[in-house]
């Protein structure tokens, strides 16, 4: 049994690691989304965590765990600084501002050659990230999301998400709540970036661009934002799908896009709404009723 498990890990280890990493990222983005913040800053925050942690482990010989923590804190700190002006923006403007942040980080990474290696990136990063560490972080993220939903703070952010003016009339400091969430989201993304850097042997400026931010945003949305396990399902689904579609290289991207459209069209609450709502139950019930009426007609 254990032998089987080891065999599985050795051939699919990369995919498992990637899934766990993306789960972490999905919950990071979920934090921001739960405060109505459609962030495209994920790539930028990951880059901050990745580059800084690599700098500390390779240049100063700092222990890996400290470097990861510092990467997360740096990303979180950056979020608090840019958050103060940016969080006053709404909807599309907030999205654009966070996208601009990701671009600024990318351009800095491209030009600050002494630290980031410029366009070539940093090669030969020691592989410190272990699968169990990623699993632990992913579990911690799910638990944190669970605890948050059932806390006083969680209730307040649910109120803010629905109606922020009304929340203010109940004495909730909306800006402080959203800033905290944005900072926490960036912290998680920074940690994910640091873990990713020490998993991949190589990092470059293109790893953390717009595409990464959009991908991360799609995990909780596809999986179902309202369900606790929605981001997890979305992350696993989106990570595994390209692997399953490997049989046809040209069709892969097209099929992937098609599936995303189908989910958005028919399951607007995300994949988890299949389990949550009575959608399936309703379909079955309709079948039953149809069969029942057919039988009755046959009898009469």
């Amino acid at each position: 049994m254990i032998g089987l498990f080891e065999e599985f890990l050795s051939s699919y280890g990369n995919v498992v690691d990637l899934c766990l990493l993306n789960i972490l990222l999905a919950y990071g983005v979920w934090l921001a989304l739960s405060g109505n913040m459609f962030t495209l800053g994920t790539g930028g925050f990951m880059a901050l965590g990745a580059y800084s942690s690599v700098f500390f482990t390779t240049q100063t010989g700092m222990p890996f765990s400290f470097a990861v923590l510092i990467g997360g804190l740096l990303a979180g700190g950056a979020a608090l600084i840019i958050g103060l002006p940016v969080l006053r923006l709404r909807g599309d403007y907030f999205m654009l501002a966070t996208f601009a942040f990701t671009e600024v980080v990318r351009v800095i990474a491209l030009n600050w050659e002494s630290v980031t290696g410029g366009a070539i990136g940093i090669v030969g990063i020691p592989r410190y990230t272990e699968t169990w560490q990623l699993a632990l972080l992913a579990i911690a993220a799910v638990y944190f999301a669970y605890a948050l939903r059932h806390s006083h703070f969680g209730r307040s952010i649910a109120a803010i998400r629905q109606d922020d003016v009304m929340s203010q009339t109940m004495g909730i400091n909306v800006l402080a709540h959203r800033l905290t969430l944005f900072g926490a989201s960036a912290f998680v993304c920074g940690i994910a970036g640091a873990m990713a850097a020490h998993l991949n042997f190589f990092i470059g400026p293109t790893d953390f661009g717009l595409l990464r931010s959009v991908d991360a945003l799609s995990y909780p949305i596809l999986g179902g934002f309202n369900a606790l396990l929605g981001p997890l399902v979305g992350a696993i689904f989106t990570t595994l799908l390209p692997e399953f579609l490997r049989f046809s290289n040209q069709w892969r991207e097209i099929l992937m896009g098609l599936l995303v459209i189908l989910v958005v069209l028919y399951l607007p609450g995300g994949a988890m709404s299949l389990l949550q709502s009575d959608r399936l139950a309703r379909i079955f019930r309709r079948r039953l009723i149809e069969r029942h009426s057919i039988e009755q007609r046959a009898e009469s």
Partner: protein
Amino acid sequence: MLELQDVTSGYGTVPAISNINISVPQGACVCLIGANGAGKTTTLLTISGLVRAFSGHIKIDGVDHTTMSADRIVRGGVSLVPEGRRVIASMSVEDNLLIGAYVRKNGPEIANDMRAVYNRFPRLFERRRHYAGSLSGGEQQMLAIGRALMARPKLLLLDEPSMGLAPHVVREIFETIQEINRQGTTILLVEQNARKALSIANYGYVLEKGRIAAEGPTEQLRNTDTVRDAYLGMGQAIESTSQAALG
């Protein structure tokens, strides 16, 4: 308790109310009546810090609230029940009430007040586990008032509590408001239903185009021509306009 001194306020650069003076004494029930767009809601939003005053001063118990943030004003004992029964539809009735007590920390006292709200509105107790969005209009208004009470306000600001409700529900809501006032909470009530508002308040202000057109104790105000003609619908103005329409 509440003093508005020469308050001018509005949106962007356009003032919606100008040089308003309002005074609400401790324990009173004061109403603010006026037509659509007269600036009633703006006045309440300015008092609760959701809209910033351009000039003038707002004082509560002698403390200047003019530039205070909205959440600190709630902590200072002023709660607003906003227009249109804004409850949190996706949360249960009980969670809505709990979030109303957001600014308070004392658990047992909160539980006590929750019981008091349920006693006041037995319908809410029956439906405490239901989603707030599934309540009827009147129940949602009760929930909105109950939620504001959970913050234990000294001053309760009510914006159009009768809006869109059936007459018997309106009667019930107004009885409740009167009772809350009798139990010691100061009330500033904004209403389009002037007759109802004047019947429960002890002092009234009439707002027209952002200015105070008339004020006085409600028995007096009810008998002035401007109020009778324009807001109670039993004076000459109504007759002459209907004649004009017929003619």
